[in-house]
């Protein structure tokens, strides 16, 4: 930064500022805070909730009240955070919000994790002077991933902005004044609109208006049933985020504790989706090398992100041939378990339940796909998000932070560094390159840290690689908004890349819709990603083709990558989900 350092005063303390977009960021940088519902650093400022009001005194003595999330910092101003006036305004805002709010806190999914509840308590709201409302609107339970309860919405617009600015916008404001609602087009159920189930709306919602569809009770009923054997596997991003729910710092790798907690809950075998990720790389790198050799269906799109898959199926079915036919790590791991776990546990398929722990709400949709079932039974019976697992651990009374670390079960718990970095934007591409290089050149890639495609704040990253004469460009994007730009380049014929990695959540799965709340702190994403890269550096094997269990699985069961057997179990097909009414006159 070359800007001059300017200063202003917060609560009498002189504070420097440079290019902060608003006063609230300056306040936070100075180690102080004001409450807010609608301000989310990764989204545009909206100024809807008026909770972040501060009293500002200008050098000429003029005083005014302003919302700090929309006010640019100015040199020389004196800012007071907690005056009689600002506290009174915040209290009134809270009371008015509560007047229109479903007050059934006790039975709310977000109880204990709700910003409205938290501020009401902090500001001493002991009584709501207004009568409870009598016109309750129906709750939308249609989506497999997200529950929308309009009675708990405070119209902060965070979800509308997240949906619009990250993805392709299925939520919007409707009507005006006191009749205003946040809803999909024409109040349709979420399942009937082009929602990709990413859950970013849930991640930014300050109340219980948008919550994760819970499968906790279903899973409890299986793990407590002695007739049923349960196996579980867990995605990379879970290990670096779950600890946050138990007071550990973001990015702390608690894989050992999670393994132990899962066994305490009652799962019979505990595996790691990173094994599935290594398997994905074997298949996807082979597919990529094949496509590059033949020059067909390029660029190849990665297929790990279920939100991205649904977007392509809905918005661009004409580009389905670009998608890798590989299932996601979760959906590769589960059918392998379905095939091999019954013998290991001595049960039939009917008495086996496969659970996957994911950072992702869209995986709840993925697991219900018909093409990911065998004989009418889903390969993955249930998907739990990181947050749901955290709740299970709490309700089981497990002292998570003090658990003795345990190892996952073999063989489907063994993984390499390539599998673990799948959780961060750029990780899938990096892991694929590490193996594809070997497949093309016969040599091992020496410098395997591909820094150019790492990072959680840039939404588009690119690197050109020289595979001993074969030049390939790999592009990495996160959010559908960003991916759409690359798709337009492909359509216009100007795309220069051969592989496109897409993760729908900004920064990748580590920032997924099922992760513990992190929307008021942009740093958490980077900390979680660093947690994964750290594990990668510390693992003995960092390339998928060196995973001994994966090698063994190919030797004994799958023959070789992209074999007939591998195709049967590890590859999938996609569906055109485009609705007729979007097809314009010219496309008919």
């Amino acid at each position, binding site marked *: 930064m070359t800007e001059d350092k300017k200063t202003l005063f917060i609560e009498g303390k002189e504070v420097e500022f440079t290019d902060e977009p608003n006063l609230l960021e300056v306040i936070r940088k100075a180690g102080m805070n004001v409450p807010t519902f609608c301000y989310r650093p990764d989204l545009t400022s909206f100024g809807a909730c008026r909770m972040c009001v501060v009293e500002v005194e200008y050098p000429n003595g003029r005083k005014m009240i302003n919302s700090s999330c929309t006010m640019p910092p100015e040199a020389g101003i004196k800012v007071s955070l907690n005056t009689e006036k600002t506290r009174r305004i915040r209290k009134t805002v809270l009371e008015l919000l509560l007047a229109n709010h479903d007050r059934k806190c006790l039975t709310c999914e977000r109880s204990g994790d709700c910003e409205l509840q938290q501020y009401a308590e902090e500001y001493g709201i002991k009584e709501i002077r207004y009568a409870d409302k009598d016109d309750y609107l129906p709750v939308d339970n249609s989506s497999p991933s997200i529950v929308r309860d309009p009675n708990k919405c405070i119209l902060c617009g965070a979800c*509308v902005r997240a949906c*619009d600015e990250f993805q*392709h*916008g*299925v*939520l*919007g*404001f*409707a*009507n*005006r004044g006191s009749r205003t609602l946040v*809803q*999909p*087009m*024409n109040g349709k159920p979420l399942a009937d*609109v082009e929602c990709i189930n990413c859950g970013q709306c849930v991640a930014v919602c300050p109340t219980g208006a948008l919550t994760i569809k819970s499968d906790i009770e279903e899973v409890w009923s299986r793990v407590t049933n002695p007739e049923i054997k349960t196996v579980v596997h867990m995605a990379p991003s879970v290990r670096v985020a779950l600890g946050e729910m138990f007071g550990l710092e973001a990015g702390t790798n608690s894989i050992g504790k999670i393994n132990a907690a899962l066994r305490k809950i009652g799962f019979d075998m505990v595996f790691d989706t990173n094994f599935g990720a290594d398997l994905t790389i074997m298949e996807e790198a082979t597919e990529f090398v094949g496509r590059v050799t033949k020059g067909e269906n390029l660029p190849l799109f990665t297929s790990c992100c279920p939100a991205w898959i649904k977007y392509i199926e809905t918005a661009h079915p004409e580009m389905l041939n670009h998608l890798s036919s590989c299932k996601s790590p979760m959906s590769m791991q589960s059918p392998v378990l379905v095939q091999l776990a019954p013998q290991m546990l001595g049960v039939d398929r009917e008495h086996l339940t496969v659970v996957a722990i994911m950072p992702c709400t869209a995986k709840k949709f993925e697991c219900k796909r018909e093409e990911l079932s065998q004989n009418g039974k889903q390969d993955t019976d249930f998907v739990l998000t990181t947050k749901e697992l955290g709740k299970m651990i709490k309700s089981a009374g497990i002292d998570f932070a003090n658990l003795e670390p345990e190892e996952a079960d073999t063989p489907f718990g063994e993984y390499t560094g390539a599998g673990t970095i799948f959780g961060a934007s750029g990780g899938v591409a990096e892991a694929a390159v590490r193996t594809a290089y070997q497949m093309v050149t016969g040599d091992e890639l020496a410098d395997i840290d591909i820094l150019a495609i790492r990072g959680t704040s840039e939404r588009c990253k690119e690197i050109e690689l020289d595979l001993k004469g074969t030049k390939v460009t790999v592009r990495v994007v996160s959010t559908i908004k960003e991916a759409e730009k690359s798709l337009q380049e492909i359509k216009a014929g100007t795309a220069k890349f051969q592989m496109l990695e897409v993760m729908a959540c900004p920064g990748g799965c580590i920032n997924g819709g099922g992760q513990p709340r992190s929307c008021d702190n942009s740093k958490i994403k980077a900390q979680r990603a660093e947690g994964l890269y750290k594990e990668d550096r510390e693992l003995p094997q960092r390339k998928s083709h060196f995973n001994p269990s994966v090698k063994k699985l190919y030797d004994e069961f799958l023959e070789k990558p992209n074999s007939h057997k591998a195709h049967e179990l590890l590859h999938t097909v996609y569906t055109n989900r485009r609705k007729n*009414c*979007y097809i*314009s*006159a*010219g496309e008919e």
Partner: protein
Amino acid sequence: MNGSGTSIDFRAIDKILEKYDYKKSYLIAMLQSVQEIYKYLPEEAMTYIGEKVEDLSPATVYGVATFYAQFSLEPKGKYEIKVCDGTACHVRGSMPVLNAIRNKLNITEGKLTSENGLFSLETVSCLGACGLAPVVVINDKVYPQMTSDAVSIVIDTLLKEEGGN
């Protein structure tokens, strides 16, 4: 939107979008043009605009359409009756006029269109013709100084033009 059977000619909407260069800043003008064709905004048309115009979504288009009172999401009748209920018209007796129309056409409160689909009825806030209060406007024709009897005759005339009762 309510199974009224309106079939949407997307080519006509494409023409409207072309006229406005597919720019989202022209959304209100686009919706007005669509409403000129159909007399209301069919859901499919709003979805189509949301999909085709960059940086818009169906939910946003719906949000704009429901924000402004000028847009109707329900089909309207062949005769659009607007009863002015601004202050001047109200004190000079617009409510009896409104009730007379409701009774005559059997349009209960909260409903927009008569059962035969010929008439739709709404109140508006002020037409700027306070000197002629109370005012009724039917398809852009102004009827000044209305009474319940006078408006009855106007509607009878329209019904006669439609050929019968």
